[in-house]
């Protein structure tokens, strides 16, 4: 009785938060209710195709399910719910549209295929009674959202395009597992890698390419090279490693903070189409500049202005000659901070392009952390290699500009294509 009353209250409250557009056939008491949860994103063409298909065909479903449309790019609470579903289904990179029917799910939309799959899944759900883990979450909105997630979240922004049987079971029975539909149109099953969404395959590659391109500038490592030349004059190997790694580690930390700030910025406002278009334009300009550098094929390093060079050299010499190791380490860390903060202004383009693309992929936090770490590793790779080789061999080696030359070509093309995708085909980078 208590649960029944609670269910009615929650149902009433749910009605206050939803915007039902169509009410189709009356509920049938003989058939169990089926809910279809669709996570979608504004600007994702596959999502638009799916929704257009649904609007034209929802009446063909028998029995008629309740459709819940959960937009993720405009509603942080829906995005968090989606992240939770991603964890539950072991599809943290699931991409949109992501459709949950009972205890099965589909990713993507394929004309002529997904619709039939959905109808089959609904029929199967009716025959076998397949409550969805999302039923309780959606129905109880804010009250039960802590059941699956670590922290309470606001009620999802739900819009229902059609509802026939909106009776929601609010009992607290164990949450069944979600199983992937056997007729997935948009994912690949690979022997070693498992289930993979092809639209997201490019993200690791993109991270590696952009990270390498951003960091691979042998001439930009002039401070490190000067530091190495000073370190090589020392006899204490331990001190050499400590000072060098403190400089590189602090530089990496500053850059990580910078990347994290960009990512958070885009996670909050990146869903606004104009932001994506601006970043797309930045990518196009950046791609052009890289291709122009490749065309000019200038080798050698630009001479850093005398005043700046002498100032940093003076500080480096004072730090490395300091007998107190702790003070020397603090000094080198502060120097790394000051040098890198100045450089950040000059290299805002690629991190912004990368983090904006990343934010559009709707990943779980640890996936974001993984991609940021991967980008950072690629960014610091040349510095690490040069430093480790120098200390091991006691001889400083440079990296040839010919690699930069070809990196400019490959990177310029990739960035320009990314810019075009961000402007004209955001679905290609949104995992949709």
């Amino acid at each position, binding site marked *: 009785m208590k649960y029944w009353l609670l269910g009615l209250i929650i149902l009433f409250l749910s009605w206050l938060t939803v915007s039902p557009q169509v009410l189709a056939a009356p509920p049938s008491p003989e058939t169990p209710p089926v809910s279809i949860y669709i996570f979608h994103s504004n600007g994702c063409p596959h999502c638009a195709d799916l929704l257009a298909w649904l609007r034209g065909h929802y009446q063909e479903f028998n029995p008629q399910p309740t459709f819940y449309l959960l937009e993720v790019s405009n509603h942080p609470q829906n995005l968090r719910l989606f992240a939770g579903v991603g964890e539950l289904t072991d599809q943290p990179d699931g991409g949109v549209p992501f459709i949950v029917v009972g205890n099965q799910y589909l990713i993507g939309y394929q004309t002529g295929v997904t619709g039939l799959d959905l109808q089959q899944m609904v029929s199967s759900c009716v025959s076998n009674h397949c409550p969805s883990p999302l039923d309780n979450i959606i129905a109880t909105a804010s009250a039960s959202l802590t059941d699956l997630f670590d922290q309470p979240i606001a009620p999802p922004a739900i819009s229902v395009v059609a509802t026939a049987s909106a009776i929601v079971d609010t009992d607290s029975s164990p949450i069944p597992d979600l199983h992937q539909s056997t007729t997935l149109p948009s994912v690949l099953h690979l022997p070693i890698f498992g289930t993979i969404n092809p639209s997201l395959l490019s993200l690791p590659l993109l991270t590696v390419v952009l990270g390498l391109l951003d960091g691979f500038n042998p*001439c930009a490592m*002039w401070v490190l090279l000067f530091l190495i030349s000073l370190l090589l004059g020392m006899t204490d190997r331990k001190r050499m490693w400590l000072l060098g790694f403190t400089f590189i580690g602090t530089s990496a930390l500053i850059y990580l903070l910078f990347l994290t700030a960009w990512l958070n910025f885009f996670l909050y406002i990146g869903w606004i189409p104009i932001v994506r278009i601006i970043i797309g334009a930045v990518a196009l300009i950046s791609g052009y500049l890289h291709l122009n550098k490749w065309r000019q094929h200038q*080798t*050698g*390093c630009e*001479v850093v202005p005398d005043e700046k060079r002498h100032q940093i050299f003076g500080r480096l010499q004072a730090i490395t000659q300091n007998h107190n190791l702790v003070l020397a380490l603090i000094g080198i860390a502060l120097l790394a901070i000051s040098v890198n903060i100045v450089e950040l202004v000059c290299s805002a383009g690629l991190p912004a392009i990368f983090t904006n693309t990343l934010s559009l992929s709707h990943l779980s936090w640890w996936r974001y952390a993984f991609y940021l770490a991967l980008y950072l590793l690629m960014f610091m790779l040349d510095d690490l290699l040069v430093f480790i080789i120098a200390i091991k061999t006691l001889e400083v080696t*440079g990296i040839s*500009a010919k690699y930069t030359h070809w990196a400019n070509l490959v990177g310029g093309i990739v960035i320009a294509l990314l810019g075009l995708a961000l402007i004209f085909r955001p679905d290609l980078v949104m995992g949709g």
Partner: protein
Amino acid sequence: MKVIKIGARWCSGCLVMKPRWVQIETELPWLHTVYLDFDDDAAEVKKLGIVADRLPVFIFYDDNGQEVNRLVGEVGKEDLISLINQIHYKNS
């Protein structure tokens, strides 16, 4: 024949060129080369009229001490040997 090489400790391209020059100097023992550091030998570098915005710079002199060529940036070993031989045999 003489070549003046101008580089710096902080210039990656200059470090790349170092082993190439060591090989060339071994293969062409008659070649006279001088290295000037952009910071440590700033006065001499200025005297040479180097207003370079890029490093390294290589200045080639013939047997009469006349400057005949200047190259900026990374240059392949074979290209350098070819240029040096060209200058050397033109004079002899």
